[in-house]
Each structure stands twice: as C-alpha cells, then as structure tokens.
C-alpha cells in the first residue's frame, strides 16, 4: 500500500503511451497536488536508424526514405535533402521547379498548421474546434492529392527538379480552395482570440520569455511567439524564396495563445504566398540533368519546416551512395522548453504546454548523450559503446 508523508510528491507519467501524446515520448512530472514541481523527458522511442539506412541506399532512393521521417512535414525533409545533394553535384534546378517546390512546401505548411490547431484544441478539451479544423484540412489534402497524387508523402521532389506540373485547372482548384480556407481561418482566429473559455486555457499559460527562448535555442513558431525573429525563409532564403519573399511573423504574448496566433497568421502568410507563386510561376522545364555519381564533398542545407528550422548535412564520397546524412529536426530544439516551462504550472496545463511547441516525436529520434565525466572524449568506438550499454542496463535492472 502507499504511504503518504507530509511532502509526498507523485510522479505522474505522461508517456510513452498516453492519450495526450500522438507519438511516444516519456515525460515524468513530479506533482504536488495539482502543481508541477519538476519534469524530465526521455526521447528516442521512435528511433528507426534512418541515418544509418541512408548509407546503404543510393541518392535517389534516399529521397523517399528521408521523406518518411515524418508524416506531417515529409515534403520539407525531401526538399532539404535534395537541396543539399544539388549543392554537392553543382546542379541547380530550373526556376519553375524551384517555384513548384516551395508551392508544395507552403501547401504543406498550411496542412500542418491546420492539423496542429485541431490537435491543440483537442488537448484543451475543445473537440468542436478540432472537428471543424480537420474538416477544413480535408480541402488542402484534396488539393495536394490532385496536384501531387497522394495525400501524405507527396514525393514531388526529384534530384534536379520536380515531378509534377501546375496547369490552369490545377491553379483554379488551388485558388478556390485557398479562398475557402481563408474565410475559415479568419473565423478560427476569431474563435481563438475571443472565446472566453478557450482563453482560460491558453492565455497566461506557458510563458516563455524572450531571453529564455534565445538561451534555450528555440526555433520556429515557438520562438516567434516569444518575439524572437527567427525564420530561415527570411534570414537565409533558399530556392525560390529569393524571388518570393516572406514576411516574418512574431508575437509578443509569449504564452500558448501567442503560439496559436503566430501559426494562424502564418497561415494567412502562406495563403498570400501560394497566390503569388501561382500567379507568377516562371516558365521553363521541370528537371535538370543529374549525374548518378556525385563528386566527393560536404553540403549543408537549412530550411524552414512548419515546426522550425530543419538542418541537413550530406557528405558524399564519389559513389552513388552518400557517406553520411545527418538530420537535425526543430522539435529537438524546442523540447527543453517544455521541461523548463512545466514547473510551476498546474497538471492540466502541461498538455497545452507540450502541444504548444508542436511536437513531432518521429522527427526527433536522434538523441545523443555524451558522458564527459567518464570518458572525456566525444566519440566512442563500437566496443566502448557496447561495454557502456552492458554497464548501463545492468546497473538499472
């Protein structure tokens, strides 16, 4: 039986299996009554060894492997990879292909933010907003299906270009869909900023000051909601963003409501961008010739995923298979903020804080922990790793 002492602290586990999490991640919150007093996180439940798997496949096959790191931001992973490999090969995709690439990227951003609005509303207990925003998300899924051929994992990127073209009929469908979505998004902005009961769950919850955001290295809408102006599309425009500039959207609220508002305003920005791209699509071909063997070198690409800055490092060694692909996803930058912010809040606010960073656990399955005290070095051989594993698990049985 349990013994209760005067300063008894429960540990409420959220995860790895929990209805609040759509993907596995293990959080432990020390709770005193309803107030959180401490938090820890363990990740890595969705680790699939993708970075290792890229080394056994050629550059073309890797596009599709890396696309499946995440279901919601699949296209942006492929775009980042393809930009890095094109840098290595010294080939630039034709302008029409670049424009179509960012068109699909913006459509994906719209889909991801609408998905997030629904999921965050569900976490707050506002199921009606969840149902309606996902109903409207079907519009963008249908647009993407008509344009690319699939609702998820669009696979539009090729090394050196894109697979699909935008004709007049596609353009009309997209514009009509965007118009409908803009009306609905205005309504959602109204709901989120004015609904009294929803604001009780979001206003003043999870305050993440600007200094904290800068020190903890937050990226994406989480940082922009704390008045940190970080957006890769604006700071280091890649692809066709040089021709179609993006406005930076920041909010000073620093709480969960500000994160909602930032994402909804980004939706409006994406609608504007989609219209602009469709109206000013440059003429030209869709692909450029691409060598099968890439000369040796290293390349970096940074892109703006719906959740923040996505970073790819690709190293080639002269064959048709990459030597190393390293992926750094935005959620891993924002995860520390959850652990820091949860302290002092009520238990009921914790899912809102967690969902406020838009966690994508399948993306951030690359957690590396370095034990400086024991070894003092930063790389281990396979033997050392194996010994450490045996010691770790024996010590924790």
């Amino acid at each position, binding site marked *: 039986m349990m013994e209760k002492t005067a300063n008894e602290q429960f540990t409420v586990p959220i995860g790895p299996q929990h209805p609040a999490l759509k993907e596995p991640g293990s959080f432990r919150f020390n709770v005193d009554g309803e107030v959180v007093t401490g938090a820890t996180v363990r990740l890595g439940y969705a680790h699939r060894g993708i970075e290792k798997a890229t080394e056994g496949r050629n550059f073309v096959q890797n*596009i599709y492997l890396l696309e499946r790191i995440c279901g919601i931001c699949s296209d942006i992973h492929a775009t980042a990879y393809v930009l890095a490999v094109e840098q290595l090969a010294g080939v630039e995709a034709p302008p029409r292909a670049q424009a179509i690439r960012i068109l699909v990227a913006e459509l994906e951003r719209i889909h991801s933010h609408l998905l997030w609005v629904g999921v965050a509303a569900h976490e707050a207990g506002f199921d009606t907003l969840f149902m309606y925003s996902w109903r409207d998300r079907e519009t963008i899924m249908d647009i993407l*299906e008509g344009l690319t051929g*699939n609702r998820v*994992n669009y*696979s539009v990127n090729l090394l050196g270009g894109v697979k699909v073209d935008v004709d007049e009929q596609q353009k009309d469908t997209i514009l009509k869909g965007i118009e409908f979505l803009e009306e609905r998004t205005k*309504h959602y902005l*109204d709901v989120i900023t004015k*609904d*009294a009961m929803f604001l009780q769950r979001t206003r003043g919850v999870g305050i993440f000051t600007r200094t904290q955001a800068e020190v903890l290295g937050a990226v994406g809408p989480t940082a922009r909601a704390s008045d940190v102006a970080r957006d890769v599309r604006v700071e280091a425009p890649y692809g066709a963003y040089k021709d179609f500039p993006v406005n930076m959207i920041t909010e000073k609220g620093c709480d969960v409501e500000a994160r909602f508002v930032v994402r909804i305003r980004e939706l409006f920005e994406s609608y504007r961008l989609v219209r602009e791209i469709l109206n000013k699509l440059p003429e030209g071909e869709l692909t450029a010739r691409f060598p099968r063997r890439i000369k040796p070198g290293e390349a970096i690409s940074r892109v703006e995923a719906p959740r923040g800055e996505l970073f790819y490092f690709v190293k080639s060694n002269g064959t048709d298979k990459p030597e190393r692909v390293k992926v750094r996803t935005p959620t891993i930058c924002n995860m520390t903020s959850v652990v820091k912010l949860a302290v002092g809040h009520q238990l009921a606010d914790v899912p809102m804080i967690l969902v406020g960073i838009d966690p994508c656990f399948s993306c951030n399955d690359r957690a590396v922990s370095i034990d400086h005290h024991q070894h003092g070095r930063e790389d281990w051989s396979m033997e050392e790793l194996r010994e450490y594993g045996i010691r770790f698990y024996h010590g924790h049985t």
Partner: protein
Amino acid sequence: MKLATMIGDVRTSFFRKPVTQRYPFERRETPERLRGLLNWNGENCSGCNICSMDCPAKAIEVIVIDKKAKRFVMHYQADRCTFCAQCVFSCNHDCISLDSNGWELAALARNAFAIYYGTEDDIKYVLAGPPAPDAEAPVEG
C-alpha cells in the same frame, strides 16, 4: 471576450448532412494524378534496370531472358511498393505508368501481390524456374 464562438458553425451543421463520405456506398471521383498500382508496357524496354536500381522499396525486378531479342519480364511486388513514382521518372523510355484507379488493393492471399508483366510465354518461362539437374541430357557413360 465572447462565449460560445463556434455557435454559428454548430447551428449550420445541425441542419446539414454530415461531411463524412460513407465509403463504400459513396465513392468520390479519383483524381487523375493519383499514384496507384504500377503498369508496365514492355515494348520500349531496353533492360537497363535503372527502375529497379532507383526503387526505394526494391519492389521491381526486370528479369532479362534475352537482352538482344528484347525479351523481358517485370516482376513487380505490389506489397513492397510505396507508390512513389520514382520509376516512372527514372525510366528513359516511358515504359512505366501508375494507374490512378488502382488504389483498392486488398487481397486475401499474399500471392495476389506478386505481379508479372510481359508476354504469356515469357512469364511462363520465368515462373517455371531453372531446369532441374536431371532434366539435362544424360551424360554418356
């Protein structure tokens, strides 16, 4: 600060039909670019095998019976295919296309997913497998 901001939506929905599509009784039109089951037209195939090299799921195998006479059989494993359409673009001779109506792909047995494309005789030849050792001409003693 308003209360019940979604009341407008709720009121309209009460009198409207639900948006759910009652599949399989209702079926929407399939978009023409939908990436469905693979189709191979072997007339122009040169047996270069780039499609199977580039397939991320190793779902295609072009079996070469006779390269000079252009006798090829494509062994397509539909249960491995991810419908990415890379093969369509890798092929330099436009041999591959994805059928936009081939998306209802459920079957009761595994062998329904092993699809062979080619002429009838070629497929029979491939499926027969290598000749058994004692079917060769007996060695003269």
